[in-house]
């Protein structure tokens, strides 16, 4: 049976940093998966975001759905300069929000979709969030950057692991 799911890189921040970036991503896989455990920032109101190949042009769009235990709501954004994964304000300084991110066919010559599920249970807001993002760019993906909106540093202790998935 061939190996189809491999760790590519992992980062745990020892100190707050502007971003976590996985660069020079191998082209040996079919899909990418990223697991992020994100701690709340000092100011606490930033979205946790993602950027592909360093592209900050307004070619990202998203549709999201969230539940807070009382209401389920959905929102949408277009022409964004980044993919929106989840509101970072959900996490806390002691219990991280967990995001499970899937990027399909990252080497393909079509636009790329990003699926993200984020659980922030046991944190200050207790919410669940699901989003789908589109990156309107047909380039193969060779780098992924995770960062906070508002140029606020990601908190120390935040971890991110990148995996590659092969079809065979």
């Amino acid at each position: 049976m061939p190996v189809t799911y491999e760790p590519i890189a992992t980062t745990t921040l020892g100190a707050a940093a502007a971003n976590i970036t996985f660069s020079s991503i191998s082209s040996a896989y079919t899909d990418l998966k990223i697991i992020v455990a994100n701690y709340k920032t000092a100011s606490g109101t930033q979205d946790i975001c993602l950027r592909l190949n360093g592209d900050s042009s307004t070619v990202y769009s998203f549709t999201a759905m969230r539940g807070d235990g009382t209401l389920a709501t959905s929102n949408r954004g277009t022409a964004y300069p980044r993919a929106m994964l989840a509101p970072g304000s959900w996490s806390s300084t002691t219990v991280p929000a967990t995001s499970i991110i899937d990027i399909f066919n990252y080497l393909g010559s079509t636009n790329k979709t990003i699926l993200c599920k984020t659980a922030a249970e046991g944190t200050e807001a207790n919410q669940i969030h699901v989003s789908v993002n589109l990156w309107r760019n047909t380039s193969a993906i060779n780098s992924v950057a995770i960062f906070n909106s508002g140029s606020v540093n990601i908190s120390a202790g935040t971890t991110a692991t990148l995996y590659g998935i092969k079809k065979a």
Partner: protein
Amino acid sequence: MPATYTFIASNTLSTSAASVTFSSIPSTYTDLVLRMSPRDTQGATDSQCFIKPNSNSGTVYTDTRMTGNGSTAISTRNASNANGNVVGFYSASSATANTFGSLEVYIPNYAEAAVKQIVTFGTAESNAAEVRLSVTGGLFNNTTAISSLLINAGNNFVAGSSFFLYGIKNT
């Protein structure tokens, strides 16, 4: 590059059972993934199952969930309780014959001495009038490393229900 998505154990039921347990889970992985395809004997279109790490029966479980049924979406929350973290909906005896639910449970950092997030995603789609899809963020508010998983059925899992446990390493 090492392989990381490693099969640990499975259980496909030959007879109905009220629960399934994976015990003696090694601590050599970073995350756990449990993939389930169950059906229940409960007299309804769907049922719900619950997961208890280490069979802990304390009031250490909370979860927040979103559920959609094709026409509306709602969100509900279970405050601290001893029932376990809700996994999601899956097909029961009134659902279309031979349909089983599809559920995935992701538990990051299960071997760490910290409280554990449990993320679940699943559906009881069966081409029937009442079907539900849910996403849940759960918290196992206990800092003990997880070495076993108890999955309790809504009533009884039917024969043929299957459960697969995998370990994921980040190195």
